[in-house]
């Protein structure tokens, strides 16, 4: 029993993300990212920044395991991901929430169904999460949009739906790719508050952005990508 608890402690103390000398290239192209070594600690908050094309999205996709590194080591929640099974991959993804730059809402599902999706795919009963989803939708200001299909939502509304979908499972790690790219500054501030609140509840947050006015609102760690390499501003 003791070993079990030790193990559990180890895991909760392990960084949410750890990269060691990671490099990646697309196909036969040049290395987009090289020699990345960094960690994302539990309960931490950081921006990931760099000019457009610097590799922010690629870095997030590495963490999401949708792109394989060409070299180096990646571990998530203390687990080496190079040879994990599909079931373990599913478990890891259930601990992560992701807001895509292009939202990736499913157009044939209502806003409500989109936000409830991470719970539905875990096989949960609809009655068990209905209140929670509706509450979150109202909280992000989509209370009167929940029966609508994404194609009729505005860019800002889609963005909030995408964020709500990432938050609904209260993930251990939240990855957001330019989550304020489509909204005006005042809404951007409100969305940032949402992420801060989530972080306060225990989630590690990584926000990829090249919006300096957004980053200037918070004095947190910055991971800066440039020329394929990573430079960290504590």
């Amino acid at each position, binding site marked *: 029993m003791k070993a079990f608890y030790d193990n559990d402690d180890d895991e909760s103390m392990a960084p949410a993300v750890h990269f060691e000398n990671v490099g990646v290239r697309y196909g036969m192209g040049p290395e987009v990212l090289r020699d990345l070594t960094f960690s994302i600690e539990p309960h931490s908050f950081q921006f990931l920044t760099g000019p457009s094309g610097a590799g922010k999205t690629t870095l997030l996709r590495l963490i999401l395991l949708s792109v394989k590194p060409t070299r180096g080591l990646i571990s998530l929640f203390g687990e080496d991901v190079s040879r994990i099974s599909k079931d373990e991959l599913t478990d890891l*993804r259930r601990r992560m929430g992701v807001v895509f730059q292009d939202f990736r809402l499913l157009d044939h599902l209502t806003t409500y*169904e989109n936000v409830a999706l*991470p719970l539905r795919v875990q096989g949960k009963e609809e009655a068990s999460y209905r209140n929670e989803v509706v509450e979150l939708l109202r909280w992000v200001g989509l209370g009167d949009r*929940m029966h609508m299909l994404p194609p009729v939502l505005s860019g800002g509304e889609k963005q909030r739906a995408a964020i709500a979908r990432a938050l609904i499972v209260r993930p251990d790690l939240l990855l957001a790719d330019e989550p304020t790219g489509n909204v005006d500054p005042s809404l951007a501030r409100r969305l940032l508050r949402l992420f801060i*609140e989530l972080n306060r509840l225990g989630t590690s947050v990584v926000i990829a952005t090249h919006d300096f006015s957004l980053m200037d609102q918070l004095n947190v760690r910055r991971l800066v990508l440039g020329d394929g390499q990573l430079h960290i501003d504590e």
Partner: protein
Amino acid sequence: MSDLPPPRSSKPPPQQQGQRPLPASLRRNAPLVPVDSAGGRALAAVIAILTFLAALCAGGAELVATSSEQWRSDIAREVTIQVRPNAQRAIQADVDRAVALARQTPGVQDVQAFTREESERLLEPWLGTGLDFDDLPVPRLIVLKLEARARPDFGPLRQALKEQVPGATLDDHALWVSRLSTMANTIIGIGAALVVLVLVAAGLAVTFATRGAMAGNRDVVEVLHFVGASDDFIAREFQRRFFKLGLRGSAAGAGAALLLTVLLGFVTRSWRASPAGDQIEALFGTFSIGWRGYAIVVLIALAVAVITGIVSRLTVRRFLNGNG
């Protein structure tokens, strides 16, 4: 966006008085994997046609099976002894001796000898009336009716006839029955093979449709993976979708086949008076397939729907494993 509520604390805020009530059901039960309706309709139509064909094959085979069983048992229950006239012998004595021998054989229920007049009457259709049969060596027939399900051994009877009634031959129709059985079994086998072929074709159609749906929904599948869906969950979603499509198609096909059977039943009944109707009836029975026929058609419809679901699920699993 000043209506954005304050961030929630770690405990959700209590429901406020002025808040709108929850809608009774938010769920539209939309399938997670959209199968575009044109493709879905096409697949349902293909499945309906294939089920229709399979049901007809199975129904036909069933019809042959049932009527051939009747023929076979009727024919097999009758054995004949033919006594050929011989100038050196008294034919009536030979017939009587043969009858007595037949009566002694176990499993024989009834023995009836055709009289001379009856035998002559049997020939009338071929030779016409008004002929003087006295000059003709008309053979005499003895018909043995067997007990139901009895399979008597005719060896001793045959031997006894050979010794005591030289002009007699025993015909137990074994050759006939076996030929008839072979023919009926061949038809039934062909019917069953056609059903299997049609089911395989349905499976292939579903495979292609599933692959198309997977390719068309690559983005959806990717999102499902990102939000934590397992391959098994995704495969089950496809299975559910295709099972419903398959059930719709196969129900339509089976319904059409049953309707056709009922119509043919009416038509043959109205033909029954005519000689052609007699012949058709002799061949196929009364064209009303019994409960067994209906059960087979319903079973085929269910089998097609189940095959549709399972094949789509396996196809998805293979597809996901190949792309992961």
